[in-house]
């Protein structure tokens, strides 16, 4: 018979357990996706070497071995130090998977936040592997995961959990929140993976990834094309192939190009505007600017001057330029 939740804490027995009997490869209740680095935590190893394990690890007695619920990093540190036995709180085999996960999350609760990918893994396991209902997940686990109570977030997390390991790996490594990752879920499997090339090419922040993926999705929908066709764009290809530029610059170029495809009129107007201003040959200290989206029906002229000669230079310029083709072109844009 499975033990009821409210009896969990009282059911554990404090024991010293031989580390050899603990199955460190059993990760069914592991929350962290950084488990490869469990045995490389030098600060924790040094602490365990000096003071031992202060907080008992939590295990399930499964008969011939013990399954770790919480404390995997401590266990790896102990193993690395050659410590034979560790202090543990041991639950019997009747503990339900959901309660084991609850203990794992509670153990981590004060210490860390989870990435959206980690949270999606937990929620997916609770619902699909452990048979917990969605309402129960929201009501009883979301606080432990630092998530707001929302059934929409459940469905978003389940969608995210279904993404490929490569996408999840990148999103986890970059600590992206849920919003940009959910954008990824709008693509078919192959298309989503194709976008990895684009997103991996620069250290994009989450806001820019949200924008990029949203723009690509809109282009695909609007033009009825595949993601690959966007990735085959010659400009995009040349940006991705140019390894000589710093990744930040490459990222900005990718962003500009995707914006250009997503907003061709706006992009064309910007270019036309810059060309016209360039041809105009403004005097030093003068700038002409437009409303960010060309919505206003005027342009701004800004002029910095120090003396009367500067002003005269501007006056002379305005006299000759006011009826020029360039000014006419600029005004035609607003």
């Amino acid at each position: 018979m499975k033990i009821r939740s409210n009896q969990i804490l009282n059911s554990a027995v404090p024991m010293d357990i031989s580390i050899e009997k603990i199955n460190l490869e059993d990760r069914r209740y592991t929350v962290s996706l950084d488990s490869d680095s469990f045995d490389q935590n030098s600060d924790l190893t040094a602490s365990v070497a000096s003071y031992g394990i202060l907080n008992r690890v939590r295990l399930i007695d499964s008969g011939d071995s013990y399954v770790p619920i919480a404390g995997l990093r401590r266990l790896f540190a102990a193993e690395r130090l050659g410590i034979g036995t560790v202090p543990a709180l041991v639950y019997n085999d009747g503990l339900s998977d959901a309660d084991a996960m609850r203990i794992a999350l509670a153990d981590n609760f004060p210490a860390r936040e989870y990435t959206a990918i980690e949270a999606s893994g937990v929620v997916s396991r609770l619902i699909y592997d452990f048979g917990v209902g969605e309402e129960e997940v929201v009501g009883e686990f979301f606080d432990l995961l630092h998530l707001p109570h929302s059934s929409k977030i459940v469905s978003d997390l389940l969608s995210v959990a279904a993404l490929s390991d490569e996408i999840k790996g990148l999103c986890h490594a970059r600590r992206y929140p849920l919003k940009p990752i959910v954008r990824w879920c709008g693509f078919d499997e192959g298309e989503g993976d194709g976008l990895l090339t684009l997103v991996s090419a620069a250290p994009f922040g989450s806001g820019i990834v949200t924008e990029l993926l949203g723009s690509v999705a809109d282009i695909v929908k609007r033009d009825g094309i595949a993601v690959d066709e966007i990735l085959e764009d010659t400009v995009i290809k040349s940006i991705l192939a140019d390894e000589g530029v710093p990744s930040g610059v490459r990222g900005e170029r990718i962003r500009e190009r995707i914006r250009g495809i997503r907003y061709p009129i706006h992009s064309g107007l910007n270019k036309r505007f810059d060309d016209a201003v360039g041809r105009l040959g403004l005097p030093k200290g003068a700038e002409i600017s437009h409303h960010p989206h060309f919505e206003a029906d005027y342009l701004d002229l800004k002029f910095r001057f120090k003396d009367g000669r500067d002003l005269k230079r501007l006056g002379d310029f305005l006299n000759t330029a006011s009826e020029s083709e360039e000014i006419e072109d600029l005004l035609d844009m607003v």
Partner: protein
Amino acid sequence: MYGFENIYVEEGAREFPLTERILNRLGSEAVVVSDFRDIPVAEEGKKSLVLAVHRGRVVKNCPGTAGHVCCGYHVINQVLGCDVDCTYCILNCYINAPGVVVNVNLGDTFVELNGVLDGKRKYIYRVGTGELTDSFYLDRLTGLAAGFVRYFADKKNVLFELKTKKTDIDGVLDLDHRGKTIISWSLNADPVAGSEEANAATIRERLEAAGRAQKQGYYIGFHFDPMVHHKGWEAGYDKTARAIFDFVDPKRILWISLGTFRSPPRLFEIIRRRHPKSRIVTGESFPGDDGKLRYIKPLRVEMYRSLLNSLKKYGGDDLFVYLCMERKDVWEKVYGNASETPRNSGDLDRMFHENLKRKWSVDGES
């Protein structure tokens, strides 16, 4: 009928004739509540009907927008909710509404209207019921369309508009409307109507219905709003513009409005979530001074010019075609001619008035 899961009646709404009429026609049991704001929001995909008593004003100025030219139209919000389920509808933003709301105290609306219509007015008063609903939605239950047509039939200096995407207009066809009611259809390019206006009649069906209304002496209006940018938009809108005059005499058309797709940003997010296949959010939109997202200005101008040219080509230069909620400089770019460009919102109201004075002749008025 109409697929309502639940019917709620506000306690204060029980005694109104409209409540009795609706409940009799539905033949369903209703739940009485003390205040309709206590009614739980229906689950996604389920609908409730709420019979309520409106307490504030139900006749309002059409919500204009800052810095844009508005025509001075007025709206009667007797019903809030619709079944056409257009992707772009502002009603999508009202996700916390408990359901479709019918304000049953119709007599109070008429009192309110009497007050407005008895006052002094410079221009012909234009008012309609199609702002937050389709004017013929629930009409078999409520009979509101006919009620308003009868009410306005003997009023002076006022033109009442029924605005719809439906064809079931039989409830008003045989009424003695005396020319005081105009029936208007929202139109679009066929592909947009097919993809974004799920439960609306086809464009051809709407135009056929307009032809039937015209035969019964009704004046006709059309609204190309929202015009949606899509592949082949120019030909699509031209086709609809041309089709109008296969069914309706341009002399009986009192106005045609044009408005490109615009919406508050939150509606974009709602559309993406509720209608993931809709392409309407993929246009080149940016926030304007009022915070609403609109197509970039040169695109709007191009779309307006194109459709305006089509309408005038097929329907003649005398058609009164106006822009809904647009900037003055966009008007100037589209029309060029100063006499066709209003100086401000009040001036557009005047232009309506003068247009109506020329084209609109009604029983009992000179």
